[in-house]
């Protein structure tokens, strides 16, 4: 299989594969690109299947762990440290109770308390603790 890479910042990033059949290589590429790790979250008593890539962040509130998605907050059965192990390289711990998806971060703001506020693309906000600042900087290439 040939491989061609086009660097074009003006276009949406996508991977297109031309293949004679769905081989193991194609499946591997699909898995790698579509980030298909699935989790089960709970909206009340209703179980909801979510892809890891849809999660904006995982947060702990009142000893319960939630996955924040675009429109809802789903309760998770896993603890935050377990989710940290499952989460891929797009996730970074920003404070003691939040693991953020870097792809879903809209911007960083300086807050009046001298901490850094994270505003996600869905409007949800949290903050970067001083302890995690170094890690966040490194993950973003600073």
């Amino acid at each position, binding site marked *: 299989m040939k491989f061609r890479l086009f660097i074009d910042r003006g276009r949406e990033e996508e991977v297109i594969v031309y293949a004679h059949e769905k081989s193991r290589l194609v499946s591997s590429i699909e898995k790698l690109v579509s980030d298909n790790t699935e989790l089960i979250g709970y909206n009340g008593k209703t179980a909801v299947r979510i892809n890891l890539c849809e999660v904006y962040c995982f947060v702990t509130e009142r000893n319960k762990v939630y996955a924040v998605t675009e429109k809802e907050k789903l309760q998770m059965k896993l603890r935050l440290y377990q989710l940290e192990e499952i989460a891929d390289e797009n996730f970074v711990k920003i404070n003691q109770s939040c693991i953020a998806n870097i792809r879903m971060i809209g911007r960083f703001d300086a807050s009046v308390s001298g901490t850094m506020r994270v505003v996600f693309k869905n409007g949800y906000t949290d903050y970067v603790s001083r302890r995690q600042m170094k890690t966040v900087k490194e993950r973003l290439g*600073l």
Partner: protein
Amino acid sequence: MNRYLKDFLYRGLIFGGFGPIVVAIVFMCISLADRGFSLTASQILLATVSSYLLAFIQAGVTVFNQIEHWSTVKSLLCHFVTLYAAYSVCYVVNSWIPFEPMVLVIFSAVFVLLFFVIWGIVYLSVRATSKRLNSQLKG
């Protein structure tokens, strides 16, 4: 328990102990500079307890700035007022400053100046870092 109250107590408990340590260091420095310096047992007790509470409050009130539904002005104002009240009461109760109008005016002016200078330095530093992180996000 309310999340913010819990954060307030948690931070206060962690950093409260630094108050008496700082006061002890200051007393030691004064005693090195002034051989005649002395304190009664009740003065030491008052200074220890009040400085613990002061450090507790100072650490705890940072939580005001994380209350998402509060505006920037409101959180900054509450932060400032609480710190100002805590420092004023602590200084007056310990007789570190005399309870006189002119002294209180000077104390207030110095407090306001220092509060906003420190806040400005920290804020500008964090803002510079956030700009760099934002440029990395876009890149």
